[in-house]
């Protein structure tokens, strides 16, 4: 019977093209408005590294002002100091650990026709690549020995490799940065975790850095962070050494921990470390160390802006208004077809059969509304892109994957079925004899 109901639905839609088009339009507009915001929320709140997000932990130590929390209510600072970061890195208490910060370098191309240009870069330790499972087009990252020996090695993104080497395998070749030669060990393939979980202090939805080189090298070259640096007490002396020994936070520390036991052990290690620092006169606040896995960290930091949640609520309300209109239109359609319903009931259709017929028709309208809804969602996203196109991060939110397309169509069908319940119930209530004389 399903195919029969599909046929009847198609005939009914053709019989009432304007009414049907209005219903499809109401659903499409509602779905478009709703899914535009849902899509942005989905991209913003997605898991950037789903297969490892539960073993990667962001580390926070509370070295902050004894009288004012770094972030209310009583949250430790988002980043760590050089002293603490390097101490945790040296301890090697986790399976893997990475200390990194954002900086910048000037690349000097071999090609004399190309001018030197500035690149966003990340100074990091060797575990960055295996921990964050970065995909490599050529080669790999570097090893711990390269960190320890302050080797001038570098990993490039695919784009920079194309710009400098025409996309060829450049592993083993030399890249000049700030007049220093670096040996290329690897070229990343396409990689853009969204949100950029490993450093959400410096634009959660920003582009990944273009060049990666050892943390030990950047420290020896006294390279400061190109990202956020916060201090709660003034430095008593100036200069690089004073900065390194200050309570300023500017680095991100991540640990790879498998299972609750490893997490507890690492937490105990952090507590012991802080206690030892307290004896040196640091860490004036009560113990307040935090370990958050990737999704917990996104939640704590409120990566998805509250405005998006408000917009989402408004978009859902708009969808409801559109569905109320659809209910009215469906009701009008059903009442216009009361003669047909009455006749079918007389010829043997049960209430259930009439219900099925009109629900299937509503599903068809929902499907059409969903397909047009995908188009209106795309238009909505393009509208946002036009309005906020100058912000690089927004561009990354203006995408629609198959999950969202499927979700839009499903939401449209479910919405249409929901909207059809009352009109269909009314249809089922039409008496078999009520309209036969007036047909």
């Amino acid at each position, binding site marked *: 019977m399903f195919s029969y109901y599909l046929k009847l639905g198609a*005939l009914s839609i*053709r019989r009432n093209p304007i009414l049907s088009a209005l219903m499809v339009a109401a659903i499409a507009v509602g779905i478009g408005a709703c899914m535009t915001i849902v899509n942005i929320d989905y991209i913003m709140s997605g898991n950037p590294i789903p297969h490892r997000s539960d073993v990667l932990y962001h580390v926070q130590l509370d070295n902050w002002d004894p009288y004012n929390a770094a972030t209310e209510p009583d949250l430790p600072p988002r980043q760590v100091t050089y002293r603490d970061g390097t101490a945790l890195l040296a301890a090697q208490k986790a399976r893997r650990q990475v200390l990194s910060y954002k900086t910048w370098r000037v690349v000097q191309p071999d090609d004399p026709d190309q001018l030197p240009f500035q690149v966003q870069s990340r100074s990091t330790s060797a575990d960055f690549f295996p921990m964050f499972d970065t995909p490599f087009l050529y080669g790999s990252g570097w090893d711990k020995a390269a960190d320890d020996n302050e080797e001038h090695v570098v990993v490039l993104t695919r784009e920079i490799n194309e710009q400098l080497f025409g996309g060829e395998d450049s592993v083993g070749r030399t890249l000049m940065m700030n007049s220093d030669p670096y040996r290329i060990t690897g070229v990343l393939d396409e990689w853009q975790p969204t949100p950029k979980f490993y450093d959400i202090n410096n634009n959660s939805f920003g582009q990944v850095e273009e060049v990666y080189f050892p943390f030990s090298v950047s420290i020896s070259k006294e390279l400061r962070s190109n990202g956020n640096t916060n201090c709660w007490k003034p430095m008593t002396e100036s200069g690089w050494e004073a900065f390194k020994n200050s309570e300023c936070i500017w680095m991100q520390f991540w640990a790879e921990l498998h299972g609750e036991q490893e997490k507890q052990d690492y937490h105990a290690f952090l507590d012991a470390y802080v206690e030892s620092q307290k004896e040196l006169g640091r860490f004036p606040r009560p113990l307040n160390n935090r370990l958050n896995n990737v999704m917990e960290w996104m939640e704590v930091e409120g990566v998805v802006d509250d405005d998006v949640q408000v917009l989402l609520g408004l978009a859902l309300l708009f969808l409801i208004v559109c569905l109320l209109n659809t209910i009215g239109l469906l009701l009008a359609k059903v009442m216009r077809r009361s003669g047909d319903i009455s*006749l079918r009931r*007389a*010829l*043997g259709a*049960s209430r259930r*059969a009439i219900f099925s017929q009109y629900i299937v028709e509503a599903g068809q309208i929902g499907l059409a509304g969903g397909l047009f809804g995908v188009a209106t969602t795309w238009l909505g996203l393009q509208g946002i892109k036009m309005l906020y196109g100058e912000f690089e991060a927004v561009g990354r939110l203006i995408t629609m994957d198959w999950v969202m397309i499927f979700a839009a169509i499903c939401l449209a069908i479910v919405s249409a079925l929901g909207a059809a319940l009352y009109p269909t119930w009314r249809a089922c209530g039409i008496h078999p004899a009520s309209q036969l*004389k007036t*047909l």
Partner: protein
Amino acid sequence: MMLSMQNLSKIYRTESVETHALREFSLSVDEGEFVSVSGPSGSGKTTFLNIAGLLEDFTGGVYQLDGQDVTSLGDSERSRLRNQKIGFIFQSFNLIPELDIYDNVDVPLRYRGFAAAERKRRIEHVIDIVGLASRKKHLPSQLSGGQQQRVAIARALAGEPRFLLADEPTGNLDSEMADSVMELLEKINQNGTTIIMVTHEPNLACRAQRNIYVKDGRLDSAEPKLHLAASG
């Protein structure tokens, strides 16, 4: 006994008005009979027909259709009985305008749950009986009134019902077409199908085996056809 009604009543109630459409209505129709029902407008003919066809509930009394008491049947069971045992022919044909002839005849068979091959066999057979085999892909709007009523008869016959209810089947037809439809109904009756036909026209009523007269919701007479013809 195809139809047996004992002291049937039907009351329509609104907040302020109570209308007795049928009062103590008793009637029996044997299998294979052709009964005509006549009476003035508002006398209860259509209410009787609707109740007989399980299209409406009744307020009191007992109704047995083909030996089955239908008083307490639920919606799905009544729908099934309508579909399997009863064929309907309406004054205004009641064809579905966007469906072609074939698909119109197909409607009750769909609800019967027949396989496609069986439906096709039955549809082609009844369309052939009513003489519209060459028009099966036509829409109702492309047919004359007489042809549309023939399609309605084909639709009623497709389920091979034992009981045919016709509500002024010739009311919208000219005399020539009306005669042709009546001949068809007589032929169907001769093949064993019980028919109850509501009509205002005495000359058509006379062609039934029995005529009953309904007045003020009551059965006024149940006279044999020959007596009616003689008195008319």
